[in-house]
């Protein structure tokens, strides 16, 4: 185990962690604003991947180019989903909400298979293909771009939340829905917005992921557990928490896999996660 390999692994861990962070940010926003755990979040990721793929396959447009379009489409889709389904269960018991998003998860996977068949797709020769050597470490260009993209999106979301009126309204609703309503902030508009942003973030992660990860209807399943762990670790509702927790989880997973054996890499993450929950139940940056 040379130093070079350790460093290399660390770098890879950070990069994949940034993707985890991006997926988790959307999830944590939805939870923070409306207290709903979205089991179907992995499917937004999947849709983002398919969107990037079809735009590439049919119109030869690189995913980096079509990223904004996919993000917009998924934003709209998220809001639509809110209006059609989620709106009705906003005040339902937690179990019903779990039930609903779980059903949506299966539904979206089923529709994806129905429409696009279960074959594996991939985007080859995108603009970001290949790898680079940075300070002696070999990094895949897609992963680098994806990582940078994740940082950019996180900063955008953070700026939105802290510096715009709409963002402030969103935070207010997350903090205290009733009080925000009393001040004239329409909860349902905020929920719809949160859902749209959440889907858009996952969609963005999907586009970035699609430049190096195979695309198939069930791909969401690979990411959803990790996303949940990241959200919990960072603290439900905290965007910065999700960001740092994502990176942490990525690094722990990869390093843990290297040092203890890849078959245990998820277990390492989960054990650490449980340990944190025991001693700091609200997560790293969640509200106590």
């Amino acid at each position, binding site marked *: 185990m040379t130093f070079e390999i350790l460093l290399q692994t660390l770098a890879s861990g950070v990069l994949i962690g940034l993707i985890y962070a991006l997926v988790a940010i959307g999830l944590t926003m939805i939870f923070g604003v409306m207290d709903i755990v979205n089991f179907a979040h992995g499917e937004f990721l999947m849709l983002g991947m398919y969107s990037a793929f079809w735009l590439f396959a049919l119109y030869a447009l690189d995913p980096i180019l079509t990223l904004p379009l996919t993000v917009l489409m998924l934003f709209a889709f998220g809001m639509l989903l809110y209006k059609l389904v989620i709106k009705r269960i906003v005040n339902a018991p937690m179990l019903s909400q779990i039930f609903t998003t779980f059903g949506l998860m299966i539904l979206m996977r089923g529709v994806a298979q129905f429409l696009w068949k279960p074959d594996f797709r*991939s985007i080859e020769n995108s603009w970001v293909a290949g790898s680079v050597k940075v300070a002696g470490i070999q990094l895949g260009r897609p992963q680098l771009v994806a990582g940078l993209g994740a940082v950019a999106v996180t900063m955008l979301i953070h700026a939105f939340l802290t510096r715009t009126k709409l963002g402030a309204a969103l935070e207010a609703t997350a903090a205290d829905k009733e009080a925000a309503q009393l001040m004239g902030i329409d909860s349902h508009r905020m929920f719809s917005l949160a859902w749209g942003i959440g889907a858009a973030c996952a969609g963005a992660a999907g586009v970035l992921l699609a430049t*190096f990860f*195979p695309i198939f209807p*069930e791909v969401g399943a690979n990411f959803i557990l990790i996303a949940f762990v990241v959200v919990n670790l960072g603290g439900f509702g905290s965007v910065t928490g999700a960001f740092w927790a994502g990176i942490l989880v990525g690094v722990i997973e*990869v390093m843990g*896999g290297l040092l203890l*054996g*890849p078959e245990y*890499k998820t277990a390492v993450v989960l054990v650490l996660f449980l340990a944190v929950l025991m001693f700091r139940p609200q997560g790293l940056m969640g509200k106590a």
Partner: protein
Amino acid sequence: MQARQQRRTVIQALGAAMLGLGFGARAQAPAEVKIGVIYPLTGPGAAVGAELRSALELAADIINNGAPGITDLPFSGGKGLPGLKGAKIKLVFADHQANPQAGATEAERLITQEKVVALVGCYNSAVTATASQVAERAGIPFLNPESSSASLTARGFKWFFRTTPHDDLFVHNAFDFLRELEAKTGIKPGAIATLNENGLWGTETTKLQAKLAPDFKFNLVKQVLYPAKTTQLTSEVQTLKAAAPNLVLQSSYTADAILSMKTYKELGFSPDMILANNAGFTDTDFIKTLGKDAEYVITREVWALDLASRNPLIKQVNDLFNSRYKINFTGNSSRSFTGLMVMADAINRAGSTEPEAIRKALAATDMPGSKLIMPWKGVKFDATGQNTLGQGILVQIIDGKYNTVWPFAMASREVTWPMPKWDQRK
């Protein structure tokens, strides 16, 4: 058990009699022979399931409607099963969704509701385990064309038959190849590492590899297991890199096979050779997705198109398959096709749809290799229900195609070894 079978037979007879004209009475041969087919048609594995389904439908269609010009293939006259007065094959498909309990439930339903005379399935070894369990309890013949877990024929079942070779043989194939390669060309495998998914298949393969390596005097330096449903393979590849093997033996499903190749390239991991174990590496999507990055990989297979030069039947049937479904056979779909053919042949020889008669006929199967589209010596089952005349082959991906490189007697080209390093490829 006997009473139950007799009772079922009586009920079936009455039922058939009541149906009247269309199906005729039990005493005469039925116009239709129902065979239950259980495969992963949705959920994980659906991509493969769809291909297997196409292969089975083709086989049934050939038996029922003929394949003009392909005279060597059994039943190519297309008049149904002559031994049952021209009865046609009817496939009843069921989806197991890679869930063993669902597979068992479907087997149950096919046997008792659909009244199939036999079952064929299930691709996933775990599902084959439970579905064949149901068949064993019900006394219905079960033919398994693709599942490779060795334990399936170690259960002492009487109604279970498997045409494909199993993992034990496949690992032997890989090791035999390496030994013969060294003898022929002097190329040594060097330090060997294994990278296997940690499901049923990969775990069994890992154990077999560990057992065989010392027998062959190979130097096994590292065995890595990983969860197939993963988001990244960095830890795995780094672990391999740290072990610095010359040869990597790999067992992966499609998504992880693709991901691993990309990760090898990304992390600059260039062993002398990657010797894969079928599954993901022979999936139609593998070369399609990776393009040039898939080149030079050697994988164990069970079938290859270039074997047609030795057995024209292979090309003829593949052309037919391709003309309908726009894809070629793979090792998986060709085995499913063969499995149905073997089952049909047994039912035909039995001359009846009685389970025991079919079972006896299956046990007595002796199909020569010339009648198969597989590169096997034939199909002949031993006491455990395992076909002893099957074997694997090894193919190497060159110019976007699978080329047979072993057994050397069947090879269409020489092995290219070592693989060019990533940065030395165009």
